C-alpha cells in the first residue's frame, strides 16, 4: 500500500471517529431542553407553575414492603403504584381527581375541587380511602367510568391484590360493589381501562395482568416469579375482559374474546384505530412486544401487532397514549420504553399510521426519532394535549425508575442479570442486591411542544417543569375551568404535583363534555372532529390512557389565534353522528347525544 493511500485511509478513519463524536453530541444537544426561563416568560406560549401545596394537596405516595425474600431488590419490585385519575365525580362542573397510595394501610385520596382553586381530600368521607388494608393488597391505579349509566362516574380500583369497584351513589358517597359484580379475588395489575368494546351502551372493563395472579407478593411460595426473559416474557399475569351485562354485573370473557394473553402489561388504551367504528385495544407490555387487538365488530379481537408494525420489536413498554399529532384525523400511538445512555437505548416509539395492510388495517411507522420524542430516559407515563392552545398536540412525559443513592447505579448488575437465561433471570434469588443504589433515578421530565412541522421541541425546564421525582402517571385536566390543560403528576414515593398552566393571551380554545344516551353515558369512545381555520383535529373520549392514568373526560382543543370554529362532528359510540355548526369558542360545550 502506498504511503499516500495509507495517509488518506488514516485521515478518513480519524474523520469518521470524530464524526461519531460530533453526531452523538449533536443529537444529545438537539434533545436537550432549553434552560429554565423567568417565571413571566411565555415565549413558548405557556408556562407551568407547581402549586400543589397552595391548592391544599399534600399527598406523598408510599411504597409497599413485600415478602422478605425480595428484600434485596425491593425498590424495583415495589416501584409502581403512584397513579391519578380525573373525573367530576359530584357533577358540580369542577374536575376532581383520585390518587392511589401503595403502602400497607396507607390511604388513597379523592381531591374534590372546591371551585376556588383549592382541593379537599374527601376520600375517607366518601368511602374510598381505606383500600390498602393488609391482606387485601395495595393500590396501583384507578379509572373512572359510569358503568351503570346513572350519570355519576364510578370508580374501579386495580391493585396488586383484590380489585375493587365502587359505585358512585349520586356524588355523595361510594358503595363498594366488588363482591356482587363478578371480579376475580386477586390480580396483580398495573393497567385498566373502561371502554364499550361491543357498543351495546354499557361500559366494559379491561384489566391487564402484570405479576401472575397466583403470586401473593407478601407471602411468596417461590422466588421464581420474575419475567422469564427481559424482552420475550409471556409468564406475566393474565389479562381480563369484563363484559358489562347491564344489570350491575360483569361476565369475564377475555379468553373468548381473544385478549387473555400473559405479557406483563403496563399500559392499555383503546380507540378506533382501524376505522371500523369499534374501539381497538393497544397494550404496552413490559419485557416484550406490544399487542394491538383489532376489534372484530364487538364479537372478539384479533391480535395484529406484527401485521400493523407495532408488535415487532420487543422493548419495555410502559405507556399507551393516542394523539392526532399531524391534524390529519388519524391517531398516532405513543409508547414509552427505556433509554439509559451507555447501557440501553430502546428509545420510545411514536407509531404513526402511514398506510393500510391488505386487510385494511393501518400500517404504523415509528417516527419517534424523526420527530424528536425518542429519548426520554426510563420513561413512564406520557399524554398528548395542546398545552399552549396553538392547535397542535404536545406531549408531556414523566420518568425515572428508582432514585436512591445519588451518583450510584445498579445498572451494571441489572444489565448483567437481564441478559440471563430464563433459569437465571426468572428467579428473584439470582438478582444482585440493589444495596441502596439508584436505577435511572433523578431524571427530568420531558415536555415536548409540537411545532406543527413534524418536530417536537423539548421545553420542560424552560416552561417550569423542573422536578426530578420518580414520575409514574401524568394526566391533564382543566382544573380551574380556564380553558387550559393543567398537569397532575403522581410520583412513586414522592409528592403529587399539580402544574398549573398559564397560556399566553390571544389563544383560543374549545372544549366538549359529552354525555351518551344510547351510547354509554360517559361517552367513552366518542370521536370528535373539530374543523377550524382550514385545520381539523380528532380526539376520542378515553376511559384511561398513559401509565396508570386517566385524563379529564372532556376533550380540549387549542385553536391558536383563530376565533371561529367551522364545524364539529361527533361520532358517538352508538354510531350516531351529530354535527355542531359554528359553536362558540373559548367555552366548554356540554353535549348530550342526539340533542
Amino acid at each position, binding site marked *: 500500500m502506498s504511503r499516500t493511500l495509507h495517509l488518506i*485511509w488514516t485521515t478518513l478513519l480519524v474523520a469518521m471517529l470524530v464524526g*461519531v463524536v460530533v453526531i452523538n453530541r449533536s443529537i444529545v444537544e438537539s434533545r436537550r431542553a432549553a434552560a429554565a426561563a423567568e417565571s413571566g416568560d411565555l415565549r413558548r406560549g405557556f408556562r407551568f407553575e407547581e402549586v400543589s401545596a397552595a391548592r391544599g394537596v399534600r399527598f406523598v405516595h408510599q411504597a409497599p414492603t413485600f415478602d422478605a425474600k425480595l428484600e434485596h431488590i425491593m425498590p424495583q419490585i415495589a416501584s409502581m403504584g403512584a397513579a391519578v385519575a380525573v373525573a367530576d365525580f359530584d357533577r358540580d362542573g369542577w374536575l376532581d381527581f383520585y390518587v392511589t397510595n401503595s403502602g400497607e394501610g396507607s390511604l388513597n385520596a379523592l381531591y374534590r375541587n372546591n371551585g376556588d382553586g383549592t382541593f379537599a381530600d374527601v376520600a375517607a368521607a366518601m368511602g374510598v380511602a381505606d383500600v390498602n388494608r393488609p391482606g387485601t393488597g395495595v393500590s396501583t391505579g384507578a379509572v373512572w367510568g359510569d358503568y351503570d349509566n346513572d350519570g355519576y362516574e364510578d370508580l374501579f380500583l386495580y391493585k396488586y391484590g383484590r380489585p375493587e369497584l365502587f359505585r358512585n351513589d349520586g356524588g355523595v358517597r361510594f358503595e363498594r360493589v366488588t363482591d356482587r359484580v363478578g371480579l376475580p379475588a386477586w390480580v396483580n395489575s398495573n393497567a385498566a381501562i373502561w371502554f364499550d368494546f361491543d357498543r351495546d351502551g354499557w361500559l366494559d372493563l379491561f384489566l391487564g395482568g402484570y405479576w401472575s395472579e397466583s403470586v401473593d407478593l407478601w407471602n411468596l411460595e417461590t422466588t421464581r416469579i420474575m419475567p422469564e*426473559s427481559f424482552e*420475550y416474557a409471556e*409468564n406475566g399475569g393474565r389479562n381480563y375482559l369484563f363484559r358489562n351485562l347491564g344489570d350491575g354485573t360483569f361476565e369475564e370473557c377475555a379468553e373468548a374474546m381473544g385478549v387473555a394473553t400473559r405479557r406483563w402489561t403496563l399500559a392499555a388504551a383503546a380507540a378506533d384505530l382501524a376505522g371500523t367504528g369499534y374501539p381497538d385495544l393497544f397494550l404496552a407490555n413490559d419485557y416484550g412486544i406490544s399487542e394491538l387487538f383489532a376489534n372484530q365488530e364487538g364479537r372478539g379481537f384479533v391480535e395484529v401487532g406484527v401485521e400493523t408494525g407495532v408488535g415487532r420489536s420487543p422493548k419495555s413498554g410502559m405507556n399507551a397514549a393516542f394523539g392526532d399529532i399531524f391534524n390529519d384525523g388519524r391517531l398516532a400511538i405513543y409508547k414509552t420504553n427505556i433509554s439509559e445512555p451507555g447501557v440501553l437505548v430502546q428509545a420510545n416509539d411514536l407509531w404513526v399510521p402511514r398506510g393500510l395492510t391488505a386487510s385494511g388495517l393501518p400500517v404504523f411507522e415509528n417516527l419517534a426519532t424523526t420527530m424528536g420524542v425518542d429519548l426520554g430516559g426510563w420513561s413512564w407515563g406520557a399524554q398528548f394535549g395542546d398545552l399552549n392552545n396553538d392547535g397542535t398536540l404536545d406531549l408531556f412525559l414523566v420518568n425515572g425508575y428508582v432514585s436512591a443513592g445519588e451518583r450510584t447505579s445498579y445498572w451494571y448488575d441489572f444489565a*448483567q442479570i437481564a441478559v*440471563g*437465561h430464563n433459569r437465571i*433471570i426468572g428467579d428473584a434469588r439470582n438478582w444482585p442486591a440493589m444495596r441502596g443504589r439508584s436505577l435511572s433515578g433523578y431524571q427530568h421530565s420531558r415536555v415536548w411542544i409540537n411545532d406543527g412541522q413534524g418536530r417536537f421541541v423539548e421545553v420542560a425546564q424552560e416552561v417550569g417543569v423542573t422536578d426530578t421525582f420518580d414520575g409514574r402517571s401524568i394526566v391533564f385536566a382543566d382544573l380551574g375551568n380556564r380553558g387550559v390543560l393543567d398537569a397532575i403528576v403522581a410520583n412513586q414515593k414522592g409528592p403529587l404535583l399539580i402544574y398549573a398552566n398559564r397560556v399566553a393571551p390571544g389563544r383560543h380554545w374549545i372544549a366538549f363534555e359529552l354525555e351518551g344516551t344510547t351510547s354509554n353515558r360517559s361517552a367513552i369512545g366518542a370521536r370528535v372532529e373539530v374543523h377550524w381555520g382550514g385545520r381539523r383535529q380528532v380526539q376520542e373520549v378515553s376511559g384511561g390512557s398513559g401509565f396508570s392514568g386517566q385524563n379529564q373526560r372532556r376533550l380540549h382543543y387549542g385553536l391558536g389565534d383563530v376565533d371561529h370554529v367551522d364545524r364539529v362532528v361527533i361520532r358517538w359510540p352508538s354510531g350516531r353522528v351529530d354535527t355542531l355548526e359554528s359553536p362558540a369558542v373559548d367555552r366548554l360545550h356540554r353535549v348530550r347525544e342526539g340533542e
Partner: protein
Amino acid sequence: MMRVRIDPRFVPPMFITLILIVAHTTFGILEGLERTAIAIVSAIAAELALGRMTWGRWPHPASAYISGISVGILVRSPFVWPYVFASVISILTKYVLRLDNRHLWNPSNFGVSALLFLAPDTVTLLSIQWGNNIWPMAVIWMLGFVIVWRVGKLHVSAAYVVAFVVFAFVRSGLTGVPWQAALAPITGPMYQLFIFFMVTDPKVAVRSKSGQVVVAVVVAFVEMLFRLNEVIYAPFYALFLVGPAALLIERAIDRRQAPAVHPAAG
C-alpha cells in the same frame, strides 16, 4: 453421488446468517432488517472500494459480510447512522491499523467498541436473550462449536468459555453477587457472536496454538477486571486491548529470537 464442497470462507458467513435468520424470524431480535442490511451493504461496499483502490483487485466479500452482519446484529440504536459508521470504520481499520502486513484488530470489535465508547447516548449493544427457552441457545452453541472446530479454532473458544466461567465465580466471590448472575451474560446471544466470531478471528490471532489459548484466557481475565469496575461492554473492550497487545508481544518475541544480521564490515 456428487459431493458438494463449500468454500471454507463461506462457512462462517453462512453460520452467522443462519443465526440471524432463525433469531429474527423466531424472536424478532433486530431493530429492523433494513438496518442490518444497511450495515452489511456498507461493510461490503467499503471493502470493495478500499480493496480495489488499495490492492488493485476486488477482495473476497466474505470477511466484510461477517463484519457487516455482526454490526447489524450487535448494534442497537434508534438511528441509522451508527450502522453505517460502525461498518465502515470496521473495514477501514483493516487498511489503516496494520502491522507486518496484517491488521491488528478484529474489524467489528474495533467498529462496535468505537461506537459504544464514543457515542454512548445513541448506541448500545444487543443485550437480550433470544427467546426464553434453552433450545435456541443450545442449538447455536452446538453449531458454533462445530464450526470453530472445523476451522481449527475450538481451543480458542473453549479456553475463553472455561476462563469466563472460572472468573465468573471469582467475581461472585469478590462482589457477593450471586454466581448465577455473574454467569448470566455468557448465556446471552451477544456472547455467542463474541465467542465464535471475534475471539477466534484468525486474522488477528497469534500463531501458536498455546499462544492463542493464553490470549483467550487473558481476554477473559481483562474482561473480569472491567466487570469488577462495572463496565458493561467488558468483553469488547477486553478484546480491543488484549488482541493487538498480543500481536505486538508476538512480534517483539519474533524479533528477539530472529538471528541478528550483521552487515559486512568494510
